[in-house]
């Protein structure tokens, strides 16, 4: 299973946080891979509408997430915002955000030579 996850919006635009994150379950530990499959199934992902419709009028700065899941020849894309009410999608989103955070944190190590520790 392959998941592509993109975040847009928010109170500020950060180039580094706007790049799509791809998660390939074949690269995950077996337990995490099956947990991810379970989350996708529990979210009834392939039955979810492509978008949950516009948020309330006047709403601003919420994130919009695009999730694409490819599994066994099937592919489906769902766009939701922070205001998504579906519990299954909320849980899946929580996992994806945490995963994206972990992958991004890897970008900080090893420390970039442009930003050496400040001298005392």
């Amino acid at each position, binding site marked *: 299973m392959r998941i592509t996850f993109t975040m847009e919006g928010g109170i500020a635009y950060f180039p580094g946080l706007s790049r799509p994150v791809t998660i390939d379950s074949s690269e995950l530990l077996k337990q995490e891979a099956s947990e991810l499959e379970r989350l996708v199934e529990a979210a009834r992902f392939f039955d979810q*509408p492509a978008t949950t419709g*516009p948020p309330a009028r006047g709403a601003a*700065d*919420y994130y919009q997430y695009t999730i694409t899941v490819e599994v066994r020849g099937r592919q489906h894309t769902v766009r939701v915002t922070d*205001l998504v009410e579906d519990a299954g999608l909320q849980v899946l989103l929580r996992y994806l955000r945490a995963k994206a955070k972990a992958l*991004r944190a890897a970008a900080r190590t090893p420390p970039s030579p442009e*930003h050496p520790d400040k001298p005392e």
Partner: protein
Amino acid sequence: MRHMMKDDPTTTVGSTVNGLARLFSQPRSRLYCILPPHMLESIAQNGTPQQRSRALQTLAIDHTLRALRVAPSSAAPATRRRPGMLMLAEGQKRRTISDARHDQNLPGSVVRAEGAPPTGDPAVDEAFDGLGATYDLFWDAYDRNSIDDEGMPMDATVHFGQDYNNAFWNGERMVFGDGDGELFNRFTISIDVMGHELTHGVTEDEAQLVYFFQPGALNESMSDVFGSLVKQYMLKQRADQADWLIGVGLFTAKVNGVALRSMKAPGTAYDDPVLGKDPQPAHMITLSIPSGTTAAYTLIQASPIMPSTLLPHGWADTLGRRRAVSGTRCCAIRD
């Protein structure tokens, strides 16, 4: 089970939005707003060739959009209910802070209401004080009684989601995440961010700017300006003493940056291996981008810069600000 009816307006808007998403696929696109036809027509007339063809395509395929354009605010009568002098004289805050307890369901449970003492939870108390400071600016400087000028209760939810790196306005309340501790601290830490979110409510009440392209950019700009003014008013600063930064204190020590945006020195707020480099362009003039898919994103990012160009023209005191902001609006439309 979710039932998708063929004639369900939500479904139609959804697929329309998908169409827009494809046509206007941008790094920071606002896919859920509804583009009014006059805007599309204007883009069709005045945009770059690429923008024009996109706008024309949209106009052609998208008649349902017009029919379904959510119009309660724009269709509302121009006359507004204004509070009588008695109400105005009261100027009372009505704040309520709720706790989502790291869930994503709003509003969460009430943890502090008007008149209650501090709770000891920094997120709760900062939100409470931030709402108060925002109320004070609008009331003291503009005689504006809360978000809608009719004493609307000010509501906020804190501890939204897990590791949630954001603050937003859901159309009715401000919502704050705690940050992930890796990149961001809690979003109530910065009073201008609170002013920014509440100002989205004011803007929606006054102008109903579409959250897309230039109107979306202007909406963000208004929020940044008033967000900063809330902070300046609290600190009793003059405009030339202010840092004009949005979101000081939000970054953790790991991040190489000072704030989300700088209105004084656009493009210098952060430069970090994880977040990237602050892309804010410095002037509206740099927006005459001939072509390319990044135009809309650049517009949105650039607009908050305008206030800094107005600084020399009299942002010296709070009372002068309303005029200056009107100037911003003219400037944006002209550009």
